């Protein structure tokens, strides 16, 4: 439910900006955040397919060709699963903050980069770079929430 709300907020803000500014990928930040605390024994399949579904819906709404954000989202989730999975649960403390920052940054970097790489264009790169700047506050807020939760859980 949280992911649906985040997707809708991201869509809402994109409509509100009227294309004037690039909105941070709140949906992907939400998935990555949830994934960091995921202890589901069935693995993180929900994350893969949520990212896939969110990406395809985003493509249908804003790109017009399904596949761009779908592919980027899935790639991000696979990277996060592999990198985060390599760290034992006991080691997932506040000290991994920088790694978490990198993972969140990856979630903002890869999905919007694919359309620019494939379709190209000077304007596309400008928009991409702007989105990275606008994403930073959202990443920092998510980092804050992560560290707060880590501290409150005493690890």
């Amino acid at each position, binding site marked *: 439910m949280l992911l649906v709300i985040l997707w809708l907020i991201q869509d809402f803000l994109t409509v*509100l900006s009227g294309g004037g500014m690039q909105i941070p990928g709140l949906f992907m930040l939400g998935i990555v955040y949830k994934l960091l605390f995921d202890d589901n024994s069935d693995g993180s*399949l929900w994350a893969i397919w949520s990212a896939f579904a969110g990406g395809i819906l985003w493509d249908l709404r804003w790109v*017009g060709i399904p596949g761009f954000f779908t592919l980027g989202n899935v790639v991000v989730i696979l990277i996060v699963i592999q990198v985060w999975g390599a760290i034992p649960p006991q080691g997932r403390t506040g000290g991994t903050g920088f790694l978490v920052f990198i993972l969140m940054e990856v979630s903002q970097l890869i999905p919007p980069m694919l359309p620019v790489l494939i379709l190209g264009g000077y304007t596309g790169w400008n928009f991409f770079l702007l989105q990275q700047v606008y994403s930073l506050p959202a990443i920092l807020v998510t980092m804050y929430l992560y560290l707060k939760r880590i501290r409150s859980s005493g690890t």
Partner: protein
Amino acid sequence: MENTRSNTREWVHGLTALILALFLLGVSSGLGIVKNIVDIWGALLIIPEYPAVVMRDAFLSWRSWSRDKNSLNAEVIKLREENAQLRLDLAKLTGEKIYSQDVSPDIKTARVTLRAPMSWWNEIRIDKGEIDKITQGLPIFYNGYLLGRVSSVSTMSAWVELISSTSFMIPAVIEETRELGVIVGNGDGSVLMRYIPAGRGIKSGMKVSTAMIGEQLPPGLPIGKIAGEISSGSDGYATYKIDPGADLSRFYTVSY
């Protein structure tokens, strides 16, 4: 063992999703059905996106209105300046006496923030001060007529001495006869013009304005009209009652 199985499952699902995404990317651009799906999905999102559309449109219309207003203001200022210049040129051609302050387009307004009952006819406080470039002695107008002059200024407010004040004494001229006198208030709301030589044919309705000999106020500022003679002393000078152009009882905003 369980962990390895879970990891394998993640890889299988992940790779499946990747292949599906690549497949979609490869084939969907050529499929007509994708356009239909895009349209349907867009139509479904109209409901959650509606507030954003309304807010964006409201902002855009406000920005457009603001730009139009600024543009109109600039146009009005330009036209005022042109009008002022034309009036001055016309006055030169016709020989009419006109002063630049009469046609100045740069008129600002101030709100009256205090008029104490104890000094009702003497002074008022306005909401403009040093930061608005108000200076001591600056003439203050109401309805285009002299209302008083600034007696003291602080950062964000100023006190204005009214023409009905007993201490407000300025030289003035009767425009029709060029007779000079002194404008002074009597403290109860009346404005008088003193020291006019008696028997000079001064009539009611003649216009009174500030005189050239005054140092504090520029000449030609309209004050009002002669209302009638009050007294003619044995010293040969008459006192006239002035009907001020500025209504001293009904001003809430003034100009400078």
